[in-house]
């Protein structure tokens, strides 16, 4: 019989709530309370997430964020700053001991990104994994991914860009050198793509979610059954949101 995992459609949340939910799933799974889980979600308002090791003030134009109503949050995963607007964000939580998950972290990035690549293929898009943590279509980035491991549990989350406003993105992200900002923006426009650009037909969030669901099912040879967060996860998530992800001491810690 095929192994059954859980699928969560948690809809749209703030940055702090989104990061709190991912962490709550990680904790609940590490306690053995919930099955391996794939989650699809979105961000409202638009938000920047920064990597665990990044400096908030070095990466984010906070003044501009306040003016545009763009939210910000520090992730528990490493990696770079991401501007979340028109995208599908996924997360997967699964035990480090699961037979499908390589012990080696780099290899496990490849395996999990393989689910995204299969998902994109279901939308007739050919993509490739580009180590360390990107997926490319026609040589351009369409997906960025970041993984952490805690309590013997893997959490990987990532984004599938549906459309991108590079000018807006760079108005809220800081660049190391203002003098080369224009060049940097044109470089990023060259290096980043989106479903909007590569799909012949208009593709909705639901289309992408359906394609990715199948992608995860194919990659891990499981069935994804839609369900909701447990009460324990909701309580954990509320606590993490209140005591961690919406607190300056966390977001400004570097």
């Amino acid at each position, binding site marked *: 019989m095929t192994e059954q995992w859980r699928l969560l459609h948690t809809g749209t949340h703030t940055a702090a709530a989104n990061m709190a939910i991912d962490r709550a799933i990680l904790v609940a799974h590490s306690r053995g309370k919930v099955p391996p889980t794939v989650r699809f979600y979105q961000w409202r308002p638009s938000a920047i997430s920064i990597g665990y*090791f*990044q*400096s908030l003030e070095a990466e984010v134009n906070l003044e501009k964020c306040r003016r545009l109503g763009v939210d910000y949050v520090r992730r*528990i995963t*490493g990696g*770079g700053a991401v501007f979340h607007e028109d995208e599908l964000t996924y997360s997967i939580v699964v035990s480090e001991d699961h037979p499908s998950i390589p012990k080696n*972290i780099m290899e496990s990035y490849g395996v999990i990104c393989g689910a995204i690549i299969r998902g994109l293929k279901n939308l007739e898009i050919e993509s490739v994994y580009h180590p*360390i943590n990107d997926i490319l279509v026609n040589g351009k980035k369409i997906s960025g991914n970041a*993984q*952490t491991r805690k309590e013997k549990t893997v959490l990987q989350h990532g984004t599938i860009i549906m459309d991108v406003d590079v000018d807006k993105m760079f108005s809220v992200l800081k660049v190391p050198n203002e003098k080369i900002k224009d060049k940097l923006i044109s470089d990023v426009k060259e290096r980043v793509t989106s479903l909007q650009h590569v799909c012949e037909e208009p593709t909705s969030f639901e289309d992408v979610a359906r394609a990715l669901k199948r992608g995860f099912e194919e990659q891990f040879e499981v069935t994804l059954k839609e369900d909701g967060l447990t009460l324990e996860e909701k309580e954990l998530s509320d606590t993490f949101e209140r005591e961690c992800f919406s607190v300056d001491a966390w977001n400004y810690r570097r």
Partner: protein
Amino acid sequence: MLGNTIYKVPKGKLLKIHLDYEEKAHIIQGIEITGDFFAYPEDSIEYLEKALLHTPLKEEVLRKTITEFVSSQGVEFIGLTAEDLTQGILRCIM
């Protein structure tokens, strides 16, 4: 004395280091290691910053301190190596 560096790791990530050091003796008084790299477990970077306090800014001493920390604590870096950290710190005082 303060020093900063932004170091693009060859085939890796961007390392940004803020260093506070004693100018005459060249000893680390404070260090913050930031960037878009990955390190497992994540909080090991904070412990590494503590382990580097009062370390002389000498290439071989830094390399030994970082390498020993990484192997004793079982730290895994992605997009970064112990050698990159050593070179990144040294660039702060160039």
